């Protein structure tokens, strides 16, 4: 337990009032329409969604994860965080295309790109999957906060889970995305300041930059300073083949949509930007901040490694950054640090509450249940959906220890086999809804076989994660490409309309010629 003085409680109270209060202030804007409640009326300058991208991806569990990989691998561990680099290309390719589609969500995009039954099945599937996924992420991040509260106050983890997620829900229920993005802006600033302060304090506690390098040298660990310190091309714990796979997944994935789990919150930020240009720069800048934040953390974790080099238990070294803060900040600053952790926490919680709610409201309720709903009804459904997600997250958070392994597997299988179809739907006109649907279904089957069943019966050896990725991609392509050619192309009227509006890149020759013939472009 960490002792709290008056000043510490003051910081925490003041921050909570500031964060929750400023979110609620936007109540009047949020209740105006569905577009306001979920996209802030599509009128934000680039730096607001950018700060929201950064704040959302700075969660309570993020420093634990970065600490884990950097403590194990040194600066090479930074490549584990490099999946965010999909925005490097996406900002100038798929972000532009998605912003021009005007779809509220990735699910709605499916029914704009693909028509008929396959398009509707995809919309239903993606929205259902996203409701589940957001609830799961809320539980995951919420219980991480519970663990931090247990470390600081000795509370049972469920108290931290419920108290801070509920505090955040006040302004999400009141003001929707307006509240989320305005609170994210100030939370992002608070988080960035505390990350710099604690990390520099950690470096100082280890004797300063020179001493850290000298100590690493004395320990025979200077390789930890080299981000390209690999263990061979295929051999060892950190092979070049893994690195190349990560670069391919991360960077080339930016050509497509839905190629990373982060695509879904980013999609909402893209549509909330006031212009196509604002959308592009918001995604680029938000992810650049995420990368640099990881880098600052990494330096602090090397300092922690020098201070505590012999930790073997993951649960011990994953707390590295938190320990640097709680053990080395002076009295009175502990409360500031904890308040910043709360800011980090609720910026992520607020995003996923509102994001899950948009799928329930726009894709399930508005499109399938009540197409004639009024704007006031839709805002209220958005609030009810927010509440459902909050309650669901408490259930997920309370059982997280038992299901994490299965759900990480679920996340992995959703990423591996649909990575290539996620690109093809953007760059290839002939790729159709049945091909994409088949990719989702067969990916479920193949991933179970490749990751669990076949190794268990010793038909194939246990494969490394990067090997699984390539195998699942090839197996999926062997099914969804024939299915695409054996089924009809999408209706040309739909494709032409879609092309004229979104202007996708790649192999769209026949559609482009038809659009030109009709005088649409």
């Amino acid at each position: 337990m960490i002792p709290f003085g008056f000043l510490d409680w003051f910081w925490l109270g003041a921050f909570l009032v500031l964060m929750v209060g400023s979110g609620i202030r936007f109540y009047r804007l949020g209740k105006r329409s569905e577009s306001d409640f979920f996209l802030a009326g599509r009128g934000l300058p680039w730096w607001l969604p950018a700060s929201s991208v950064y704040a959302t991806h700075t969660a309570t569990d993020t420093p634990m994860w970065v600490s884990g990989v950097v403590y194990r691998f040194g600066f090479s561990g930074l490549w584990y965080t490099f999946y965010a680099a999909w925005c490097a290309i996406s900002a100038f390719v798929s972000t532009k295309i998605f912003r021009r589609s005007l779809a509220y969500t990735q699910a709605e995009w499916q029914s704009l790109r693909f028509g008929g039954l396959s398009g509707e099945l995809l919309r239903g599937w993606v929205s259902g999957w996203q409701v589940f996924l957001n609830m799961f992420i809320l539980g995951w991040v919420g219980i991480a906060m519970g663990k931090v509260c247990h470390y600081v106050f000795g509370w049972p983890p469920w108290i931290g889970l419920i108290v801070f997620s509920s505090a955040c829900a006040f302004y999400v229920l009141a003001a929707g995305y307006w509240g989320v993005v305005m609170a994210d802006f100030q939370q992002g600033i608070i988080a960035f300041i505390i990350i710099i302060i604690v990390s520099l304090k950690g470096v100082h506690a280890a004797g300063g930059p020179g001493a850290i390098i000298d100590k690493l040298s004395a320990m025979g660990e200077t390789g930890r300073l080299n981000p390209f310190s690999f263990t061979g091309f295929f051999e060892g714990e950190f092979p070049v083949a893994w690195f190349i796979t990560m670069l391919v997944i991360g960077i080339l994935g930016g050509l497509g949509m839905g190629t990373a789990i982060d695509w879904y919150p980013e999609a909402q930020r893209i549509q909330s930007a006031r212009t196509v240009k604002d959308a592009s720069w918001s995604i680029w800048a938000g992810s650049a901040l995420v990368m640099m934040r990881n880098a600052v953390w990494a330096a602090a974790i090397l300092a922690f490694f020098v201070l505590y080099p012999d930790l073997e238990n993951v649960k011990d070294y994953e707390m590295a950054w938190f320990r640097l803060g709680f053990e080395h900040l002076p009295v009175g600053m502990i409360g500031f640090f904890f308040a910043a952790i709360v800011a980090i926490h609720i910026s992520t919680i607020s995003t996923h509450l509102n994001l899950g709610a948009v799928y329930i409201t726009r894709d399930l309720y508005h499109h399938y249940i009540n197409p004639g709903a009024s704007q006031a009804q839709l805002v209220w459904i958005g609030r009810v959906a927010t509440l459902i997600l909050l309650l669901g997250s408490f259930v997920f958070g309370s059982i997280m220890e038992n299901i994490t392994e299965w759900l990480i597997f679920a996340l992995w299988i959703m990423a591996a086999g649909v990575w290539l179809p996620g690109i093809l739907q953007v760059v290839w006109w002939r790729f159709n809804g049945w091909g994409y649907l088949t990719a989702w279904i067969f990916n479920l089957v193949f991933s179970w076989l490749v990751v669990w069943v076949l190794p268990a019966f010793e038909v194939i050896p246990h494969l490394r994660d990067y090997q699984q990725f390539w195998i699942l991609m090839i197996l999926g392509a062997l099914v969804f490409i024939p299915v695409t050619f054996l089924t009809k192309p999408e209706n040309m009227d739909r494709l032409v309309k879609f092309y004229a509006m979104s202007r996708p890149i790649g192999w769209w020759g026949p559609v482009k010629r038809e659009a030109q013939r009709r005088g649409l472009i």
Partner: protein
Amino acid sequence: MDLLKKKWLPEHADTWTKEDTITIIISPIIYILLTIGCALSVLLIPLGFLLLFVGIVLLIVMVRLINPKLSAISENYEKKQKQYLEDLEKKVKWED
């Protein structure tokens, strides 16, 4: 200088050009330079400051290269956005 074209006609801005190709090549490189440069700079390693500097220079080049094109695309698109939004609402209500 042709490489840093400042004025774009809408029909040209909407086609893939060398500006797009250069941008998607240097953009990931900037991410890598900023990440590694930042990590090394916190430990006051000189290479880190050099990488950061190169990353910032490339960022300025990228902004000057692609921003005018993005502006032209945006301006042209926003003239049509209202109609597209009406179409989108018809679609969600099954009227299209």
